[in-house]
């Protein structure tokens, strides 16, 4: 249920603008990899290339190679829709479907892909909500609107929705930045549990969070605005935070920069 991601020499463009340059990294299965770095260095941009969500943006394109185990995500015959079913995503702002109930939100990915069997859906909705640590809070109001939950609950609902389609990899772009500390803690705990099943990549601006939840940390930086962002280094989180190889990493982590 979890796959390794191998990225080789990846460049990402928005039209003529090169946003990310020359990223090569390996993301280990069943672990949490955190992306840190100053604003605008291309963390979100790079993250979105891991499930081809950058293609949704006009002008977005990549050069380079992304392998999911032995599948080439950018092979000419690869269907981006299939890629996104395998590599799920959770966004910065909770975005439950406003017209749908809690149940329907979680079931949305399956329903919209044609799963109709009520028993199957019931089972997956329950296990996904349990997986997202939300079941106890919502089990008595599954038919209430998803937009009526608190921000933290909505974000966990979005995580439940993402894991309901049973992806191999879960990408999270600053999933806690719109949440209070308690909800943030709930999500962090959840990430710790989810890594037993999924490969998780999480973008965060919160250094403590990266240190708390991740096994490996990648530091991105950009030399100047207008320049493309680059991967400075990726290593075990303890190494990045205690003994980074690059001066820039050390500066960023100790707050002397960015």
């Amino acid at each position, binding site marked *: 249920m979890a796959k390794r991601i191998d990225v080789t020499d990846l460049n990402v463009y928005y039209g003529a603008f090169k946003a990310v340059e020359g990223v090569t990294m390996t993301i280990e299965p069943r672990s949490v990899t955190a992306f840190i770095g100053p604003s605008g260095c291309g963390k979100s941009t790079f993250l979105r290339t891991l499930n081809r969500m950058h293609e949704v943006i006009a002008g977005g394109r990549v050069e380079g190679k992304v392998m999911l185990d032995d599948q080439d995500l950018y092979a000419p015959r690869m269907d981006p829709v299939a890629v996104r079913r395998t590599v799920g995503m959770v966004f910065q702002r909770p*975005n439950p*479907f406003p*017209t749908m109930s809690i149940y329907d939100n979680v079931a949305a990915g399956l329903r919209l892909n044609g799963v109709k069997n009520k028993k199957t859906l019931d089972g997956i909705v329950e296990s996904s909500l349990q997986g997202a640590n939300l079941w106890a809070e919502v089990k008595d109001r599954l038919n209430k609107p998803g937009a009526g939950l608190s921000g933290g609950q909505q974000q966990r609902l979005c995580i439940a929705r993402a894991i309901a389609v049973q992806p191999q990899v879960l990408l999270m772009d600053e999933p806690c930045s719109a949440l209070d500390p308690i909800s943030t803690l709930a999500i962090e705990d959840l990430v710790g549990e989810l890594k037993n099943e999924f490969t998780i990549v999480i973008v965060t601006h919160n250094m403590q969070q990266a240190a708390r939840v991740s096994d490996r940390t990648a530091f991105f930086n950009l030399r100047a605005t207008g320049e493309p962002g680059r991967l400075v280094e990726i290593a075990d989180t303890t190494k990045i935070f205690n003994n980074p190889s690059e001066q820039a990493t050390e500066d960023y982590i100790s707050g002397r920069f960015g």
Partner: protein
Amino acid sequence: MSTLTREGRAAGESRAQPRSGDRLSDQHDQQPPDEGATPPGGRPDDAALEEMGNPHHGRAVKDAAARVVMWGAFGAVIVPLVWILYTVVSHGVNLLLSSTWWTNNQRNINSGDTGGGARHAIEGTLMMAGVTAVIAVPIGILTAVYLVEYGRGPLARAISFTVDILSGIPSIVAALFVYAVWVTTFGIERSGFAAALSLVLLMIPVIVRSTEAMLLLVPNELREAAYALGVPKWVTVVKVVLRTAFSGIVTGVLLGLARIMGETAPLLILAPYTKNFQRDLLHGNFPTLPMMINQDRGDIGFATAAERMWGAALTLILLVLLLNVIGRVIARAGSAKT
């Protein structure tokens, strides 16, 4: 002049002074002058307060002016509206309460006669609106979906431009166009359907523009959420985007319907009035409420005809109102849950 008193006091007050009960009188001000008044550079408070006081005074004047203008505009809209409603209701309501109005047609009823009803015209107007909507709504919604979700480049711009032009076409021109094609070129007879076709031309741009506006309101995050679940784009558009915009789209359709139901020029040219029931849209004359109004207006010298005219006008207003209510119910049932 509370502004003045406040300014006077504020200027003499220093921020260092403890906040006294005196502040109570400031509560109605949006921004009490002793809060947030310390400039970052640590300038003397008095200067800062004075600076804050003046724009505030200016704002109060602007606020009052805007209020007057707004109420004036509101009155300018509401007075004629109430007046129209009063006139139509007072002249027309009697007929609507008569037993035959909702069941009979005007067959064999001459201008000076009483009796008969408007059933034929009500049915005709509803049928024509229905046929028009059945053709115009899908075309309009699909066009809007194309423009918002798919269209890029010259084709989309050309379509958008065409819709702009279409929405500026006078109804009589649309009618003449259909006449030229339908009657002159193809030699088909004038009919309710021909009139409906010209109404389609008038309704499409209304639907396109209102649907477009509603689709643009759907946050991109929802589309992305669906894509990230591995949902194909067209399913996302149908099940998420259109679904989320549903109530707005319904409202747009109703506005479009309201617009065409009272349209008269195309009927004058393409669908001559009849006092009989007529359920065949493809052949012969066709009764509609605007044409009934027009007919009786021609005989306005007869008190009976004048009354019928007001009755038909009130009926038309009520139909549009009823459609709006139905639409609102549908829209509410299908709108975003919170």
